[in-house]
């Protein structure tokens, strides 16, 4: 059976052509052409209805901020969430839990490191399930390799302050207080005071505590300044120049 030409179906679907007797005879007998015509008609209807979609309003800013807050939190807590379901919280935390889909960046930490990280996260990030994790025994305090009191920098209100601790696990634990509200977000940096080279360690969410992994090869003798900056959502990955807190690591 000779199918209708696709052009013909398109023009029929758009109402540009009228189906003649031979078209109708074929369509009545051919489910394939019928389905194609139906599909094209449907798409033409969707196309016509799409006019009103050309000027859609932007989502309000707080939706984006909610997204950032949630993903920042999720970044910090995946391990904690997994360990919460462990039936024997008194035993040492092991890492044989099935890897979740989002733990890719934690793969390089050793089993021991994981224990300590979990303990710190449980002790300091009071967001999810702290009680469940802590209900049995007190987790050992992690080793502190270096630390720095953070003070308000520049025109930041002097009440703003914090503490930075580099843990034996290779993570930077940051505790902050009284940071001024900013329209964007807070970013954490390590700066080499000799040449002002710097790199971003991560983003500080709405919580007053955060654990950020440091690159394993970081030279804290060089990159000794911990800096918290106010950043805008401007797609510029460089430091905004607006530092809120700074402190010098000593170990």
């Amino acid at each position, binding site marked *: 059976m000779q199918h209708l030409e696709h052009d013909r179906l398109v023009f029929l679907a758009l109402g540009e052509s009228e189906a003649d007797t031979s078209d109708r005879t074929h369509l009545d007998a051919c489910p394939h052409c019928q389905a194609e015509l139906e599909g094209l008609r449907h798409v033409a209807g*969707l196309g016509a209805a799409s006019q009103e979609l050309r000027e859609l309003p*932007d989502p309000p800013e707080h939706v*984006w901020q909610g997204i950032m807050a949630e993903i920042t939190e999720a970044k910090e807590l995946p391990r904690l969430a997994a360990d919460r379901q462990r039936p024997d919280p008194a035993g040492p935390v092991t890492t044989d839990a099935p890897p979740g889909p989002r733990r*890719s960046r934690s793969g390089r930490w050793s089993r021991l490191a994981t224990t300590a990280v979990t303990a710190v996260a449980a002790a300091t990030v009071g967001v999810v399930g702290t009680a469940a994790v802590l209900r049995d025994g007190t987790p050992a305090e992690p080793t502190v390799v270096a630390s720095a009191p953070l003070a308000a920098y520049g025109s930041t209100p002097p009440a703003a302050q914090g503490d930075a601790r580099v843990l034996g696990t290779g993570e930077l634990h940051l505790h902050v207080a009284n940071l001024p509200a900013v329209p964007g977000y807070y970013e954490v940096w390590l700066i080499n005071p000799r040449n002002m080279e710097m790199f971003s360690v991560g983003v500080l969410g709405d919580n007053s505590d955060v654990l950020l992994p440091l690159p394993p090869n970081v030279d804290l003798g060089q990159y000794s300044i911990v800096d918290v900056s106010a950043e805008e959502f*401007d797609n510029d990955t460089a430091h905004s120049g607006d530092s809120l807190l700074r402190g010098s690591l000593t170990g």
Partner: protein
Amino acid sequence: MRATVGHAPNQANRPVTGIRQQPGTPEDELADRFRAGDELALREAYDRYGRAVLHLATSTLVNRSDAEDATQATFVAAWLGRETFDPAKGSLVGWLLGIGRRKVIDRLRSAARETRVVETVRQLPEPAPAGSDPDTVVDRLVVADELARLPDEQRRMLELAFFDDLTHQQIATVTGVPLGTVKSHIRRGMASLKRRWEVDGAAPGARPAGISGAR
């Protein structure tokens, strides 16, 4: 304050996803960076498609703050599940809308449960105020997005046919383009719209096996 990537924010004829396919800003590249976990790509995807996802939510959910929640939840789920996005199975915006559709349907279902409870208590069979059907909204957004991406001439001819309801002869007269060329643009444009709908659309029949990869 807001970053606008890949498009001018207030241009007169802004396509639904905020982009016209432009040289140097290919979708594939954004999708790749998104999948690789580049947070800037998240922002960029949000700038391009946040409007479409919010529209899906506001036109299907009655409550505005539910709609904003669903939009937020969509991007969070997409980001955390970015490794499950398979570019071979559809576009990034199609995938996002598939996730959005599920978030919206979850909320519609829980609202329906609450309504039933209230009805049982009050014995008032008053139907909940109904928004649009999520599948239809997704399909419309997908087709609108594809329309915005068509080559200019194809898009222009189809818009005249769809929005101004002109015959092909009238389009030829208005545009000064020969009738045969008008027909060929329209035929190609329609083929692209239909293909895209089959790949990224949500409605039953649009594709054989539901929304790919979306959670």
